[in-house]
């Protein structure tokens, strides 16, 4: 194998991780667009949904039936979470809501451990085994599959945000909920919808990555940090940004981990963050984010 193929192989590996980060980052971006907060529990909710899928399959449901059921359950679950957990602190300072999601994180994580224990569960791979061989570079079908689904979800979200009146309503709610209500927008429903959609996207993310990461209650904990990084780099409002950010973070950390020996695998987490910091210093709103309008 030549050095170039090696490099490409590592890059593909990075794209694989990047796709995982991007998938969760999309859910984070979604919730941020709707509610203006960062949701620490996003990864754990995705993990919970994945367990739901696992449970369904364990009771004999085939994957392609379990998936839509799980997505539906997650949609409803997202609504419930908004209604029960988030609604009571609506209007409280933003940080209060963020801390509530931290509480939710701890709760869901422990709950999953309580119900399903911490042993690793096997989760069927929806994509075929093996992969493509492109001039000596091996690309697993699963990587391609995740990338494909992420791209589709990104496209859908882009359409939702930019080309539907629902997207407009959603932005209005995130921007100024009080005025949105005065315009007759049912803010409560919009927020419920936001949580529901985010939970659904999160569930999809969980189901996609579970065969790679292996299902256990802490599956998404590590992903969350990288998904935050991806969303931050991309600009937290933009689905395209989330995906670009995710892939970039994945490739950057993999390549530095593998090739820059001073950094090495142990310190590679620092690399994407240094880059993010550098990007943000130039563009404080992230690569694809919108600058907030400010004037006196």
């Amino acid at each position, binding site marked *: 194998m030549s050095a170039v193929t090696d490099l490409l192989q590592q890059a593909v590996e990075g794209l694989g991780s990047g796709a995982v980060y991007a998938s969760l980052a999309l859910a984070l971006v979604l919730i941020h667009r709707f509610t203006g907060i960062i949701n620490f529990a996003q990864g754990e909710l995705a993990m919970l949904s994945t367990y739901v899928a696992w449970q369904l399959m364990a009771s004999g449901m085939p994957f392609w039936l379990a998936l839509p059921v799980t997505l539906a359950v997650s949609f409803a679950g997202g609504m419930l979470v908004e209604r029960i957990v988030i609604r009571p602190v609506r209007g409280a300072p933003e940080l209060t809501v963020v801390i509530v999601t931290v*509480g939710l994180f701890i709760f869901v994580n422990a709950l999953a451990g309580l119900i399903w224990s911490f042993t690793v569960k096997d989760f069927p791979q929806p994509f075929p085994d093996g992969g493509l061989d492109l001039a000596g570079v091996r690309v697993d079908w699963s990587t391609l599959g995740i990338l494909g689904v992420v791209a589709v979800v990104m496209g859908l979200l882009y359409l939702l945000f930019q080309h539907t009146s629902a997207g407009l309503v959603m932005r209005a709610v995130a921007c100024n909920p009080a005025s949105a209500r005065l315009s007759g927008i049912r803010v409560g429903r919009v927020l419920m919808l936001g949580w529901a959609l985010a939970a659904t996207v999160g569930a999809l993310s969980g189901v996609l990555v579970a065969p790679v990461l292996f299902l256990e209650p802490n599956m998404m904990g590590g992903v969350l940090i990288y998904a935050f990084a991806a969303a931050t780099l991309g600009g937290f409002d933009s689905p395209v940004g989330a995906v670009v950010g995710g892939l970039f973070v994945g490739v950057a950390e993999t390549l530095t981990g593998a090739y820059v020996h001073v950094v090495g695998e142990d310190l590679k987490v620092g690399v994407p963050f240094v880059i993010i910091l550098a990007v943000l210093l130039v563009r404080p709103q992230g690569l694809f984010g919108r600058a907030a309008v400010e004037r006196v």
Partner: protein
Amino acid sequence: MSTITAALGTDRARRRRAALTALLAAAVAGCVPFYFAPFQVFQLTMVLLYAVALAGLNLLVGFGGQISLGHGAFFAAGAYAAAVMLDRYDTGHLATLPVAAAGCFLLGLAFGVPALRLRGLYLALVTLAFAVFLPPLLKRLEPVTGGAMGLTVDKLQPPAWSGLAEDQWTYFVVLGVTATALLLARNLLRSRVGRALRALRDNESAAEVMGVRLSLHKTLAFAWSAMFAGVAGCLYTWVIGFVSPDSFSSVLSITLLAGLVIGGLASLYGPLLGAAFVMYVPSVSQDLSEAAPGVVFGLLIIAVMFVAPTGLAGLPGRVLGAVASRLPRTTAAPATAAPDRTPEAGPAPSTPSTPADPAVADTEPVGAPPRTERE
């Protein structure tokens, strides 16, 4: 004129009351270690040292409006500074405190400069990244930090003349440092500097027009708050006698922020309450459920935020307010309580709405202070 003299009168009365409260608190704090079991004294010591870190974070987040999810890193830096000095140079405990403080101050200063460009969420997540990055870095610097195994150092020992047990002596020393730190923070906030900080939190442009130098105050706020976290970390080393990279994971940073918000942002004694929460509630959770303490802990966090959305420090006021507005007439104008609630942006959390119509949640005009908003 009479109103002024009256105001002066109440002012003096208030001051006297404050002095009395302080005296009482000091007396109680002084007696505690002679009454409680050593491990309870230890717990209180931990509460005090976390309170220092939270007070620092409060300067930044509560009063300065900059969110940091990376203060565990400064805490760790302070802890390691102390541990390394004790381990390698045998400097004695007291010498580590100024070094940890100064070191973290400088570190905070260095961080404060890029932080100037970043806002809200972005700053929060970049600082979180720093917290994530620190443990592997500490592991890498093995020759100095002892690597993954960490460092075990001597705890604080009581001098013979004191006649105190180890836990008591440690408690008093930590109490002294904490009191000093809280006093410094309070002084800072009650001055021109503190006002400038709060002003730029509320409205940066207006503050700048008033002559507040944003870069200076924001960076220094970062530095102060890092210093407080570092001091807390140093105390931690004194008390625990052991540091390891995995003790300072990003969870610590998140816990600190959670503690602060739970205790009460921008409140002077919120950090103490938050520290107590962080310290005691996990134990309470496992008393409630051995099978899954995390389930209970998570629920308790959420529950506290429901009951006290502006933090525990605001709770008594909210309760009193709610009672006061209920008492005179049962049908009294549905109030939003919280008379003492810092009138910050956003509506007050609602009093429970009529069950028949759950949609009526917000009771205060959501745009209540719109006029003071930026354009």
